């Protein structure tokens, strides 16, 4: 045991104890004036819907995330870019509860501590996630895929006695139209093309009516036209939903930031934020050019 190791251990232990002691109902901070904290209500009165603070994740000594701090405003569309291994997917794993960080904080709104919740709980409070590889239920039809994603009681008993009502049917119908799969409602999802699966997965996310969407390379494998349509869809969601888009495709990022030149783009590198700013700023940043755009 070297002194460094012991020190790191005691820090980690402190962090764990702090986490165990729990933020209580006020989310780990002093309640500010005049607001009542309510269980399950996302408090965005401070402006941020997602707040990551000094998140560190290490796998066998390799730091996938290194003191990552990031905050996403309510209704914002944030693009995140970065070279392979920059920690983009790990960051999503932390937010959605798949990976527990060694240190740091992750809050949804000002009051909901994400690190204390399980994957399915996080999903049901309104964080939807699209995987890098499109993941749909391959043996079920497109319609059934959307039906399962429909926002409803997730309990065992209620799903045994579940009946689709007219309103829900309308929602599924509208979604089928939105994701351009109206003609394929009864097709088995496994038979769809790669791009269609991506759309179906996005549709499934939207059926859950999430407040925050995490989209991991949503346009991989799509044709130019599909990419264009996806960009339009995301831009139409901006404002009502908050979106975090991780993407390699710079053309797509251009598309997403075209309407507002000041829209923030974040560059990740080696597990922490390398640069943040408008796309033009970021592309002009020397460090960014060096690690990512430098060709």
């Amino acid at each position: 045991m070297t002194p460094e190791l012991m020190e790191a251990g005691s820090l980690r232990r402190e962090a764990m104890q702090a986490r165990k002691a729990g933020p209580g109902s006020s989310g780990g901070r002093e309640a500010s004036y005049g607001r009542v904290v309510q269980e399950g209500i996302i408090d965005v009165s401070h402006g941020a819907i997602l707040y990551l603070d000094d998140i560190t994740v290490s796998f066998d000594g390799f730091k996938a995330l290194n003191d990552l701090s990031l905050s996403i405003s309510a209704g914002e569309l944030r693009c995140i870019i970065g070279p392979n291994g920059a920690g983009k997917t790990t960051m999503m794993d932390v937010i959605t509860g798949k990976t527990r960080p060694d240190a740091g904080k992750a809050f949804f709104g000002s009051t909901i501590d994400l690190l204390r919740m399980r994957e399915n709980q996080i999903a049901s409070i309104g964080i939807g996630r699209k995987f890098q590889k499109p993941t749909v239920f391959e043996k079920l039809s497109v319609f059934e895929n959307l039906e399962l994603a429909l926002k409803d009681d997730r309990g065992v008993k209620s799903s045994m006695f579940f009946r689709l009502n007219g309103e829900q049917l309308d929602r599924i119908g509208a979604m089928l139209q939105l994701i351009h799969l109206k003609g394929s409602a009864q097709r088995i999802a496994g038979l769809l093309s790669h791009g269609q699966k991506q759309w179906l997965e996005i549709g499934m996310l939207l059926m859950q009516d999430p407040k925050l969407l995490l989209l991991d390379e949503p346009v991989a494998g799509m044709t130019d036209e599909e990419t264009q349509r996806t960009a339009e869809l995301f831009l139409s969601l901006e404002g009502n939903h908050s979106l975090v888009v991780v993407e390699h495709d710079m053309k797509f990022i251009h598309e997403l930031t075209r309407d507002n030149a000041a829209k923030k783009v974040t560059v990740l590198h080696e597990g922490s934020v390398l640069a943040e700013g408008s796309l033009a700023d970021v592309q002009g940043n020397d460090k960014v050019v060096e690690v990512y755009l430098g060709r």
Partner: protein
Amino acid sequence: MSALPGAPLTPTLSRKREREQEGEEVVASAEEGEAVVASAEEGEAVVASAEEGEAVVASAEEGEAVVASAEYSLSRLRERVGVRAGTLLAALAICILAPLLNLFVPQGSVFHMSDYAVALVAKIMCYAICALAMDLIWGYTGILSLGHGVFFALGGYAMGMYLMRQIGRDGNYQSDLPDFMVFLDWKKLPWHWAVSDSFFATLLLIVLVPGLLAFVFGFFAFRSRIKGVYFSIITQAMTFATMLLFFRNETGFGGNNGFTDFKRVLGIAIAKPSTRMTLFVITGLTLIGFFLFARWLVASKFGRVLQAIRDAESRVMFTGYDPLRYKLTIWVISAVMCGVAGALYVPQVGIINPSEMSPAASIEIAIWTAVGGRASLIGPIVGAFFVNGAKSWFTQAFPEFWLYFLGALFIAVTLFLPQGIIGLLRRSTKKEERA
């Protein structure tokens, strides 16, 4: 959200509603056995929805898609009518034909059903329940259990304890205690035999013991996210460990001889042909009941979540479902079904011993399911009948080759018939339709 995109969804809607109605009807017919009436109505429903389908085609823009989905719902309906008719025929055969042929047709007649055949079919029906239970957990949820024999045996032991108490003083030692306890020089019943005199308590135990074991085991295994082959291995270990426990005399389950030499059930002589026939009918109706229950489960949204867990568990989780609860529910249901099968098996076969918990016995259940066809409910039943029918013929004709045959069958099915016998039948009927 914009308005319903009208026409193309209508067949879906009708299919949905009908599927829901089917759920009700299935339950109703299971309860009342009035399947005839239901299936007559069914016919009309088919006509109605066909007309509906046509009407939709006329009004739709995307004609082809609609036709496809109308055909889809028609083929579903046809399948359902088939299942309904098949279930009805099976129920008639079990409740009327078999008793008639066995009890009332004279022994010399060609149509006489021998006692041997009754016992064999009854035994296979118990196995078929196990295969059905295995299909729910393996075929639909993607969790391969190689320990289902333990639930079967526990149900059997619960029934066996009751049957042992029913022997009364008619055992070899004319004692109040079961013979093996006298042999071990025990003076009174051990604590876990306390309720073995009560038939009602025995019925409860048949459900509770396998259910409770499955719940505890499943809770820890699924909570620790043990999956795939690792789960299969620990179920195998579970059944093996339980077998070793039951082999010991001290545990009070008759050691490696188990329980046998039963005399009565509910005070009625167990060897009487009418008792055997009654047990046969009860077993058959239980099988049909479980089949209809499983159909209802699988057709519900619950069933679709199970299939979703099988295909993409992480997506299920990130959609907000808790896979633990779903897996645990179907796991316990499956275990209880096996327990009931074991309880029906013991009085008809007349013996229960720890060999039912041997790893091989559990693996066989998986083989019946795979041979018949996973993820189709009729498949495992066909598989159980096919493999066990072959077994009873082989073990008479070429006893030394049975295990080779079983192994070869399993390999052949895995390589050439991933969907089992049912998959083969479906493929050939589809070809006919195309031709």
